[in-house]
């Protein structure tokens, strides 16, 4: 997407600077005069919200790292030191802990928006896949971050998740020993997790930069899923989207600070306020809520290796999505059958989440297996079949026409 108008600075310094390094031209082209479809709805703000939450996490994380000690004997105590003695330490920690949850809420909504409106389809396949890379990096970062307070859930979560790699044939156990740096999760594990937990957010930021770059080549998809035909279909990013995104950020913060200040431990688990004990496993080990659907898929398969493979496949299948769903129409709004299956997928993922939170026994096991089966069926069978047979409703001529018709 070319800027809607050239950058013409008046200020002498900016002119001089920009001639040698066109930083202002690039910023102007991607944040001010960046043309976007004029029919974007509120769901399109969740990309900005995700970027905002990444910023919140990096800033609070850097500060927490100044007060935290990554040592098995001191980690738990240093978190309590933050909670009790550091000025506003409790606030920073609760913002960071709940910030991870809100980052995931925002990103999951962002992903489902892409799934519904076909944002993964050409010419945006790479954009979609870069987003999935961010998701995987977020999961790794969140998992390692949860280990740092060195509570019971930290320790046993780390043990269980790293043990997934022992499912790899032949070299599995050697890989686990390598990950741990010992024969159990211990001080070396904590130290390397801290190092990586500090590093990965910056990798996320770098991939997010590529993600935005890849977005700005074709420009945003839109609720109609049709291409822009010209300037009459578009609006500059500034001031329209700046205002809209700022409003959305403030709305998110209203909810966020409600949780941080009035229910900061609601999304956590009480067992993580018990210091890690390598000799006692808590009765119910539950991962953080954002991992529950994947955890349910893992446990629904009785074989260790196949379970692990299924869990990783749940994300890998999303990489293939642009080719699995080859229907010509992007937006789910014009695909009546797809729409119903989409709703089913959303329910399915929620069900998987509930199953993941419950012990793998009795009816939970059966529900978990059915939900897992549907998850893969949806992507591997339903979408390819619909691509062939589904007849879409007629698309509007252009975005501006549709907008005019609506108002």
């Amino acid at each position, binding site marked *: 997407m070319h800027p809607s108008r050239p950058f013409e600075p008046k200020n002498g310094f900016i002119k001089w600077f920009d001639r040698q390094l066109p930083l202002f031209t690039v910023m102007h082209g991607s944040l001010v005069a960046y043309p976007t479809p*004029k029919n974007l709805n509120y*769901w399109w703000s969740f990309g900005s919200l995700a970027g905002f939450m990444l910023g919140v996490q990096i800033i609070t994380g850097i500060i927490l790292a100044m007060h935290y000690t990554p040592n098995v004997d001191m980690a738990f*105590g240093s978190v*309590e030191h933050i*909670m*009790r003695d550091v000025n506003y330490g*409790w*606030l920073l920690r*609760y913002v960071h802990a709940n910030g991870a949850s809100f980052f995931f*809420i925002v990103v*999951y*909504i962002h992903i*489902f928006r892409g799934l519904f409106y076909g944002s993964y389809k050409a010419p945006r396949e790479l954009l979609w896949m870069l987003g999935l890379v961010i998701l995987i990096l977020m999961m790794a970062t969140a998992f390692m971050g949860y280990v740092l307070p060195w509570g019971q859930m930290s320790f046993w979560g780390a043990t269980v998740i790293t043990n997934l790699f022992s499912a790899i044939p032949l070299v599995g156990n050697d890989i686990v020993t390598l990950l741990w740096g010992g024969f159990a999760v211990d001080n070396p594990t904590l130290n390397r997790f801290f190092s990586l937990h500090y590093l990965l957010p910056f990798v996320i930021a770098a991939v997010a930069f590529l993600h935005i770059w890849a977005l700005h080549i074709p420009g945003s998809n839109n609720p109609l899923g049709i291409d822009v035909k010209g300037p009459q279909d578009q*609006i*500059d990013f500034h*001031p*329209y989207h700046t*205002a*809209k995104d*700022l*409003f959305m950020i*403030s*709305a998110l*913060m*209203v909810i966020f*600070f*409600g949780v*941080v*200040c*009035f229910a900061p*431990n*609601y*999304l*956590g*688990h*009480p*067992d993580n*306020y*018990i*210091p890690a004990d390598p000799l006692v496993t808590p*009765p*119910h080990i*539950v991962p953080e*809520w*954002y991992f*529950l659907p994947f955890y349910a898929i893992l446990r629904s398969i009785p074989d260790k290796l196949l379970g692990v493979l299924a869990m990783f496949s749940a994300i890998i299948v999303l990489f293939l999505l642009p080719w699995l769903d080859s229907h010509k129409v992007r937006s789910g*709004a014009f695909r009546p059958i797809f*729409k119903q299956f989409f*709703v089913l997928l*959303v*329910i399915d*993922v*929620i069900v998987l*989440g*509930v199953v*993941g*939170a*419950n012990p793998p026994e009795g009816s939970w096991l059966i529900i978990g297996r059915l939900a897992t089966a549907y998850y893969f069926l949806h992507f591997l069978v339903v979408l390819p079949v619909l691509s062939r047979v589904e007849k879409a409703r007629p698309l509007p001529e252009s975005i501006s026409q549709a*907008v005019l018709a609506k*108002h």
Partner: protein
Amino acid sequence: MKNKKIVAGLALVAGLSLPALALASTDAEEPMQPPGGWPQDGIIGAHFDRQAAQRGFQVYKEVCHNCHSLKYVAFRNLEDLGFNEAEVKAIAAGFMVQGEPDSDTGEVKDRPGKPFDHIPSPFPNPEAAAASNNGAVPPDLSLMAKAREGGPSHIYSVLQGYKTPTAEELKELPGGKVPEGSYYNPYKAGHVIAMPPPLSDGLVQYGDGQPQPTVQQMAYDVSTFLAWAAEPKLEQRKRMGFFYEILLLIVCGLLFASYKRISKRVLGH
């Protein structure tokens, strides 16, 4: 259009309510709330009952401290409960803590506590604690009110929950009986607890003008104290939260109006 919004809304709500569902499978009985609830709960005016917390500290000191440490609480923190500086000094001096090595001999002697010291553990190490308690280390109580489902209500209930099990309740236990050296308590997961009933009516002498030290009163007091010990910044957090919310709602409203105004200007609607 409407459907989509509902579905996404549901997804958000479900995401938030999952942890609650996750806890449905514990077999401990639903903990009791004190009559009238906890004053530190709620949004506006949430506060710790300081009188109760001060009495609760007395119960901790005279009863719980025989076995349980409270290592993340320093004596200086007690000023938060309304003790003045001199009282805190006196309380601290009533505990012996490990001193610094003597500069001449290198000998380490215990000395009376000072406000900056943390409340010392009743046992020198976990092994000693286990040896005195049938092999089970009594857990540190600093975070007990956050480390159990139900929080302070859990402590309040367990302290009052000791009873002789009925034949039916016995049947639910593995082996059909309470294990040797353990006690029946339905508020504990598994309904069996290693701690002997710690409270009995009149166990602690409360000062003049204070309520009768019944088991229920002491349970309430010490649970209040431990709720404070686990989350000493709760009051500040909720006060700031209320202020943040008001400010954020104003900002949110103004930004929404601004967005609408700009939308009208550049989009015409």
